[in-house]
């Protein structure tokens, strides 16, 4: 016969009634933001795993023998360094192909004997971002005029993008969580004001503050669970649609599948939010009640 009704008619406040919906919307955003962060993190890790090539360019020299010696010295130096997988000299034919768009076809538009730089591709081992400046410094000890070029610019951009997205996603998730807490605090304060007569009655009946605060806590928790599950479900649906629907499959940012751990991490978001909301409501109510005698 004992009903589930709270002692305070909290569901009757417009603000309170919409609390669940607020929380739902904000949870949706938080989960999506965190999904972006998690996927970006995946991308960053995958990029770190793919080997990376930088190119050492040695300026053209007239003396072919001296040039070859220089190349050998540079390759020997590089292959002795930690983090370098192997090196390879770019062949004459490939070099011609590379400069063709700029200088014209060899032998036709341009004198065949025009001096060209010699290029050494350096394949780095996967791992953390290599210190290219230091590498260049080392190379210059044997070939003072060597230039080091990062020949995978798109790799760099993608990685920068992924890193940024990771922080932005995480940051946005955090902002949304904070916003949710602010909304909860404001709504709880408003409810406390709105129901001051009922709160007063409960206290006259001898209810300790924790009893009254528990009413707000229970309501906030119910709203958080309801809103949180709605928001989480909606976010999951959006995510799955974004990840697995054809038009988006091709984009490299979405080439990473979330790992099982990622899904668990995302599921923690609404749970954590619900927990924080509940605690926030209780604290707000307790503080508000302490002001009254």
């Amino acid at each position: 016969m004992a009903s589930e009704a709270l002692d305070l008619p909290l569901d009757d406040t417009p603000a309170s009634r919409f609390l669940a919906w607020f929380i739902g919307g904000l949870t949706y955003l938080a989960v999506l933001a965190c999904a972006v962060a998690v996927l970006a993190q995946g991308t960053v890790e995958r990029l770190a795993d793919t080997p990376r090539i930088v190119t050492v360019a040695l300026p053209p020299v007239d003396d072919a023998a001296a040039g070859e010696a220089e190349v050998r010295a540079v390759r020997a130096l590089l292959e002795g360094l930690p983090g370098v997988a192997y090196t390879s000299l770019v062949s004459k034919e490939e070099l011609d192909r590379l400069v063709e768009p700029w200088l014209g076809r060899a032998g036709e538009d341009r004198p065949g004997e025009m001096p060209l730089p010699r290029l050494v591709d350096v394949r780095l081992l996967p791992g953390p971002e290599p210190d290219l400046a230091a590498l260049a410094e080392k190379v210059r000890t044997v070939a003072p005029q060597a230039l080091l070029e990062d020949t995978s610019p798109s790799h760099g951009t993608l990685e920068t993008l992924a890193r940024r997205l990771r922080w932005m996603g995480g940051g946005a998730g955090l902002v949304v969580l904070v916003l949710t807490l602010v909304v909860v605090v404001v709504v709880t304060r408003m409810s406390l004001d709105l129901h001051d007569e009922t709160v007063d009655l409960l206290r006259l009946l001898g209810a300790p503050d924790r009893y009254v605060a528990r009413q707000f806590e229970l309501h906030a928790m119910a709203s958080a669970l309801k809103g949180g599950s709605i928001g989480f479900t909606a976010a999951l649906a959006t995510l799955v649609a974004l990840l697995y629907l054809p038009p988006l499959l091709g984009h490299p940012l979405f080439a990473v599948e979330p790992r099982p751990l990622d899904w668990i991490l995302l599921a923690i978001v609404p749970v954590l939010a619900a927990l924080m909301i509940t605690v926030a409501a209780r604290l707000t109510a307790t503080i508000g009640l302490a002001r009254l005698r």
Partner: protein
Amino acid sequence: MRYGSGEEVLRDIGLSINAGSFHYLMGPSGAGKTSLLRLLSLSQPASRGTVVLFGRDVARVDRDELGRLRRRIGVVFQDFRLLDHLTAFDNVALPLRIGGADPERISAYVSQMLCWIGLGDFIEARPPQLSMGQRQLLAVARAVVGRPDLLLADEPTSNVDPARAERLVHLFAELHKLGTAVVLATHSRELVRRWPFPVLHMERGRLIRALPAEPRAAVG
């Protein structure tokens, strides 16, 4: 005692109510009966003077103790102050829940109380669906269900028919016999005639015929 920054509505109250006593509180409208009961029910602090309840100066007790004291007092408010969104059952169960009684005992106790007082058919009704007299009975049920040590009833029979009024006063008298101190504000001379207990008479915020007069309000 005063409301907000208005003038004092109660003055020179010297009153001592002994444990297990029974007093009527009478006086014209606006005399200050409700205000005095507010002091005694710890709804409002005294602006001057001291209120001693169950041997303790209530201005000096801490929050937890205040709650405990309040739980020993049952109040029938003149405007009932029922919670409109709760059923009759939940309204009456409220003091027991706050007191932390276990659900089964609450259920048994509350149902019994409601049936006894004549609201057996309205256990699931909410206050707005009850007649005024029924609401008053509900308010009384809530005040007495916790077997308080002090019962403050502000015109608890004003809206019920004479037969039920009779029954209510009988209930109060029974509680009184079990040791509850009762203060019953009323306008009904008939009640006083039929249940002769000492009468505290108020006029313009002053107690003019209190039986054992002392310079402060003390109960218990």
